């Protein structure tokens, strides 16, 4: 029988029994460092696509879900959290929640940002959202009319969360057209202003592109001139003919056909053009507002328009078609009357939860109908439900009302959870309740659509951020 002898001296290799406590300590340290797993058992899951799965388990460690479903289990070191018999759902997503602070004065500040006005420490707003099970919201920049600015996406986490609470500060370009009961003439002017804004932005974009090309040519010529002649003429202004058709100057006339300054300059330019040496092209002034509009023109950013009346909706769709914009209609109480046009334009619609009252109305929302959502869905338009001009609505209650008005229950549920997250482009981060996703979920007393269902607890990134009982005691 061979005896296995150690080549090295014994003292350098301690025996396994002595190693065991050390290993155990290291493993435990490792486990604690990873974070202890948390487990909720015997809950009914309502997934982001509307399936109800009873007798399920949710396991999360740190801020991520490690296992979820009927077969999930936590392991023997996990912390058990009692939620037996409750319903666990992904956090609800509010795709249009106006923050009363995010009001930017009207005046075409397309570059203004709602994100600058969101107070991440406003606990009341966050708690209101959590109370309704909402964990993230799109907040538009608001204005009385016209270009309003850049919308933002906020996640309702605690401010000291290491994950940033503003998920996006340029989620969409916001416009407001005819939402404040304006008379027809004013609305025509708003639409015209929108069209002009995009046209000027496009012209400015072309001017900047031309400038870039001219700059390259100029530098090329400079280089050639430097090679051929040791001395080169100092560059003077103006490359000729194209300058006159650049309307994108700040403070310049709105009318692109107006080129009064140009002939004089052109004459000068032609006179000077006889001189030697390349001329440095003049940069069209930078304009962040136009740059914002250009992003929308390039299809890099969605345009969200708060518009109510059917005729205004049609005009907005025409503008979107003319400039190739990806448009989302918000408010859209009159959308059911023009559902086919909306479908043809492939635009999505965001309706809000405040139901219109019964009075005859001369205002912008007078075409609202209870079955607006159902009619749009039947015509093939994708409809979302959100809080709208009043933030912090009970989205689950409003969605259950939609079901009563004819919408399919699973569709309505998806539109406030998984599809809403996809729509906002944040579904990789939150909005689903699947393994590997962020542990953002809500514990309800019953199915969120059933009468008397209440939000009991809200978890964001694995931490309990809201507890209805302790919130009640605090008041």
């Amino acid at each position, binding site marked *: 029988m061979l005896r296995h002898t150690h080549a090295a001296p014994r003292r350098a290799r301690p025996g396994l029994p002595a190693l065991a406590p050390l290993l155990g300590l290291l493993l435990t340290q490792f486990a604690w460092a990873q974070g202890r797993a948390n487990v909720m058992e015997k809950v009914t899951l309502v997934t982001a696509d509307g399936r109800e799965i009873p007798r399920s388990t949710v396991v999360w460690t740190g801020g991520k879900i490690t296992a979820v479903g009927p077969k999930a289990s936590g392991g023997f070191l996990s912390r058990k959290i009692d939620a037996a018999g409750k319903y666990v759902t992904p956090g609800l997503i509010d795709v249009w929640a106006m923050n009363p602070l995010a009001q930017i004065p009207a005046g075409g500040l397309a570059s203004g940002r709602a994100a600058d006005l969101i107070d991440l420490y406003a606990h009341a707003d966050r708690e*209101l959202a959590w*109370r309704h099970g909402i964990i993230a919201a799109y907040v538009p920049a608001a204005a009385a009319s016209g270009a309003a600015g850049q919308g933002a996406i906020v996640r309702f986490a605690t401010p000291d969360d290491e994950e940033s609470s503003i998920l996006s500060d340029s989620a969409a370009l916001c416009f407001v057209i005819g939402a404040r009961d304006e008379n027809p003439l004013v609305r025509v002017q708003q639409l015209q202003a929108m069209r002009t804004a995009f046209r000027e932005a496009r012209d400015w974009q072309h001017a900047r592109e031309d400038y870039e090309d001219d700059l390259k040519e100029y530098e090329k010529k400079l280089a050639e001139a430097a090679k051929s002649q040791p001395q080169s003429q100092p560059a003077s202004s103006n490359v000729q003919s194209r300058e006159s058709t650049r309307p994108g100057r700040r403070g310049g006339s709105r009318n692109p056909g107006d080129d009064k300054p140009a002939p004089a300059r052109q004459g000068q330019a032609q006179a000077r053009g006889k001189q030697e040496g390349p001329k440095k092209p003049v940069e069209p002034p930078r304009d962040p507002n136009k740059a914002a509009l250009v992003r929308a023109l390039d299809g890099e950013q969605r345009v969200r328009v708060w518009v109510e009346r059917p005729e205004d909706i049609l005009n907005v769709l025409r503008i979107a078609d003319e400039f190739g914009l990806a448009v989302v209609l918000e408010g859209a109480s009159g959308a059911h009357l023009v559902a086919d046009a909306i479908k043809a334009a492939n635009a999505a619609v965001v309706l809000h*939860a*405040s*139901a*219109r*009252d*019964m*009075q*005859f109305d001369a205002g912008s929302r007078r075409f609202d109908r*209870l079955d607006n959502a159902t009619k749009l869905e039947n015509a093939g338009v994708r409809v979302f439900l959100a*809080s709208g001009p*009043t933030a*912090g*609505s*009970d*989205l689950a*209650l*409003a969605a*259950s*009302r*939609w*079901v*009563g*008005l*004819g*919408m*399919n*229950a*699973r569709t*309505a549920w998806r539109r406030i959870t998984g599809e809403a997250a996809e729509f906002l482009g944040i579904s990789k981060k939150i909005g689903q309740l699947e393994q590997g996703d962020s542990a953002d979920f809500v514990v309800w007393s019953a*199915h969120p*659509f*059933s*009468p*008397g*269902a*209440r939000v009991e607890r809200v978890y964001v990134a694995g931490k309990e951020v809201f507890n209805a009982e302790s919130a009640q005691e605090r*008041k």
Partner: protein
Amino acid sequence: MSTSFPALGVPRVRHFLLIPIVLAATTAHADPPRVLKCRAYVNEAGALVRDGTIVIENDRIVSVSGDAPEGATVESYEQGVACPGLIDLDSQLTAAGQLSEAASAIEAQAFAADAFNAFAPRIQEALRAGVTTCVLAADDRMLIGGRSAVYATSGPNGGPVLRGPGPLKLSLSPVALRESYEPSSRAGAIALLRRTVEQARAKQDDPSPLAEFARGELPGFAAAPFEADVLSLAEWADREKLKLVAFHNADAARIAEASEPLMAVVVGPLGPNTNPRFARSAGLLEKAGRKVAIAGTLPFAPADSLRIGAAVAARHGLSAEAARRAITSVPAELLGMHAAIGSIQPGKIADLVIFSGDPIDLRSRVLAVFVGGTCVYRAPEDDEPGDSE
């Protein structure tokens, strides 16, 4: 006297033949009993009870569970849940113009029925949402607004019809204060109210509504937007033994106990945007043992405001049974009409709504509405119902 009737030119003996014919004709018009079979119905405690077989004869409910009588026409609603017709305690739907006097703060003799517009628009919309009874009263701009009127949203001619006089309308709202004459202050308003009611009580056997209220016979519906208003009303009711109902739609946490001398507190309208601190008032009042009703305030709210209000209150602490009672039997009690309407019991008027599920579950929709035993609305068959669990 065997003269023939000159007008008819027929010998008198033949008239006796007309009598049985006429009698037969009138009895032929008596409605045969109608039976509604439902999956469940809402009982007087507000709970859902399985298997309702509601027998209606003429305009009354004859029985609620049990067997259908022979030969009766049976309407079967397999998924249907029968609920008493919804009652809105605060509605201006049938108002013909404005019901408040600008020139005086007290119009004790006014009767809202004088401003009733039977041709008002949008009644059908309310009816289709399940509202069968509404109360028309002066708005909150008058200290004493006069007598309110109770009407059914559908009558023999298809339009709304008055059912009777209702409670006295009062208001402690700041909008009831005047600029250049009494009352221009809250203390003045309460003093004026007390004085006026005292004077009415002093007159013995005065049949006017104000005197009835002063004697504690007629309830008063009082707008009380602030907590202090509710406390003032409670104190007044306790001292003078009055029947008062406070309409308070804000936080009730601090007044739930103190409102004990009041008949009830009415909240509403509530919706998905209501501040949760206000929405929990109904639940807190119920826990304190107070009667709670929920108002719809049509047309200043969506047509299904009563159900939405009940659903919101149920999500914020009100029990499901109390939520169903808050829009049916409690309003009927406060109007003094609970012997006739407000619950599905034998002997009551057949004001019913058949829902496709629990009435306070907003996923349910209205399948049919009955007022006085007549089916006044039936939902179209081709509507695809949403999935209601």
